[in-house]
């Protein structure tokens, strides 16, 4: 294993047992790694298991089988997870889609951002805390007047900025963002995407970016994996995947993305892919770093 990868996921499975006749295989054998400072995109439709991947990596749900290595440590094992709990909590942060639900409505912005700093004992002194808070707010493009506000008082875009500041506060090595811009307006989406990009360049954290919007993925990610029913069907560098999609599902997904261009859009032919068709096999490397399920 190279030292360059910050996160390595090996044949990860997450099955939810409902009753003796039904087990939902939300994630069914997923393998990938994220390198230091890389932006890795995960695309898929509702129910494809992309959020479950994020939750399992975070340790919110324990994996059914398979391994998760974070900075070389096998954190999917309970004992090792407990041993390095502090380090994991500090260096792995998540941003959720719905900022209204992710932030406690009864805490001020100040309290929300300071909480991880206090819990992880990163900063103890009051003065240090204030300075860090100011710096963090400034970094996400908010000014000092927001410190005393409560989440319901501010707009969705601003709330998402607070959630980003909270994730950044512990200077993590890996940030997982689960549909962070899906609930925002177009012009605000652009603001947040720009913010992510400039922060990522500055802090060089690794980034697992989950989205269903392919145009955002194309813009922000270095590498992309396409997920379908708990499995990857294709994984490649972003440019390669968009220029040379090989799996029929990836092609149908790309053809369905609406393009803001009426004449092109109205003459576009959709490619259909029956999701019930055979979805077994193995990921095979067809060209350099381009994997397809075959």
């Amino acid at each position, binding site marked *: 294993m190279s030292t360059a990868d910050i996160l390595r996921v090996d044949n990860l499975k997450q099955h939810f047992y409902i009753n003796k006749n039904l087990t939902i295989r939300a994630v069914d054998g997923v393998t990938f790694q994220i390198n230091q400072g890389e932006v890795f995109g995960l695309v898929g439709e*509702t129910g494809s298991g992309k959020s479950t991947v994020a939750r399992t990596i975070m340790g919110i749900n324990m994996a059914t089988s398979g391994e998760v290595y974070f900075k070389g440590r096998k954190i999917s094992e309970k004992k090792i997870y407990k041993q390095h709990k502090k380090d994991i909590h500090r260096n792995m942060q998540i941003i959720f889609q719905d900022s209204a639900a992710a932030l406690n409505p009864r805490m001020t912005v100040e309290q929300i951002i300071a909480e991880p700093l206090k819990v992880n004992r990163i900063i103890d002194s009051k003065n240090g805390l204030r300075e860090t808070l100011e710096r963090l707010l400034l970094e996400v493009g908010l000014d000092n007047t927001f410190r005393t506000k409560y989440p319901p008082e501010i707009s969705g875009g601003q709330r998402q900025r607070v959630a980003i500041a909270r994730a950044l506060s512990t200077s993590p090595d890996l940030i997982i963002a689960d549909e962070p811009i899906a609930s925002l307006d*177009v012009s605000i989406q652009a603001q947040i995407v720009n913010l992510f990009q400039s922060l990522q360049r500055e802090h060089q954290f690794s980034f697992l970016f989950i989205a269903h919007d392919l145009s955002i993925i194309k813009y922000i990610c270095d590498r992309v994996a396409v997920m379908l029913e708990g499995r990857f069907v294709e994984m490649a560098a972003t440019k390669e995947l968009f220029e040379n999609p090989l799996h029929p599902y990836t092609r149908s997904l790309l053809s*369905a*993305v*609406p*393009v803001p261009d009426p004449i*092109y859009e109205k003459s576009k032919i*959709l490619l259909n892919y029956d999701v019930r068709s055979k979805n077994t096999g193995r990921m095979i490397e067809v060209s350099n770093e381009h994997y397809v399920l075959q």
Partner: protein
Amino acid sequence: MTKPVLQLVNLSISFDTPQGEVEAVRDVSLSLNKGEILALVGESGCGKTVMSQSVLKLLPKTSRIKQGQIIVDGDDITGYKEKQMRKLRGSVLSMVFQDPMTTLNPTIPVGKQITESILKHEKVSKEQARQQAIEMLNLVGINNPEYMFSLQPHFFSGGMRQRCVLAIALASNPKVLFADEATTALDVTVQARMLDLLSDIRHQTGIAIVFISHDLGVVARIADRVAVMYAGKIVEIGTAEEVFYDPRHPYVWGLMSALPSRAREGEALTSIPGMPPIMLDPPRGDAFAVRNQFALEIDYREAPPMFQISPTHSAATWLLDERAPEIMPPILPKRRASA
């Protein structure tokens, strides 16, 4: 010229709140012809939903029509009471909302929910209504409609549920359908099929559709005409080609260039700085002026009127006035080669 099925004349709608009057829709005029799909685009809070719900009179009691007229199929319905509106809803005007699960009753089979709407509006026997409902399910592209007729909504996937909602909305042959973010909650592949379905139904039945969305890609696929709203006003209206290839309002320029598919590789996305205004106290001049890099001095003093660019295309910005200085729009949208 054919008579428009829906016409709004200088419509203004306000909400009375403890903080004061919120002007949600301000002086909106538009018309919709038979078989036409008009897309209403805008950010959240710009008044697109309020405008469409005001036509169906679904707004809460705190709202009031301040001025203007709503004309449906030649009749002025502005002053209609609830009893009169009930006759119109479903048979003339119909609406599809974003979330199919909250629209449908989870305990009643979908077929029954469709027949309910038919029996309410038409004098038919139960058996005829059942036949019509099955036809409707067939029309919206549900396979094996006789079997699906007796299933509850939870047996259906999100896309199928939205089709059922559409079947209910279309059951008694309305003349105007309002689709309020009807495809937003769906996956891209399902969404694309739903859009094509709406387009097909329009050709088959001649229904006029007001399609409310914030996704310009979706709008490009479905709309004949596009109206862009900002802060309760229509800032630009025209055919889809005119608005997408030759936008004139700075806000529309901003929206277009904020799209990631328009960004050039390695460059930051262009975003519109600032936030939409709070409509509790709308600015006196052009509401977009503070976020507009091309704002003129007059923008802060006086709201711009609609300037006519072509018979179908008009925009509300002082930049179109003959006294305005020449400026270069920030982007020139490219037209793609057709697929």
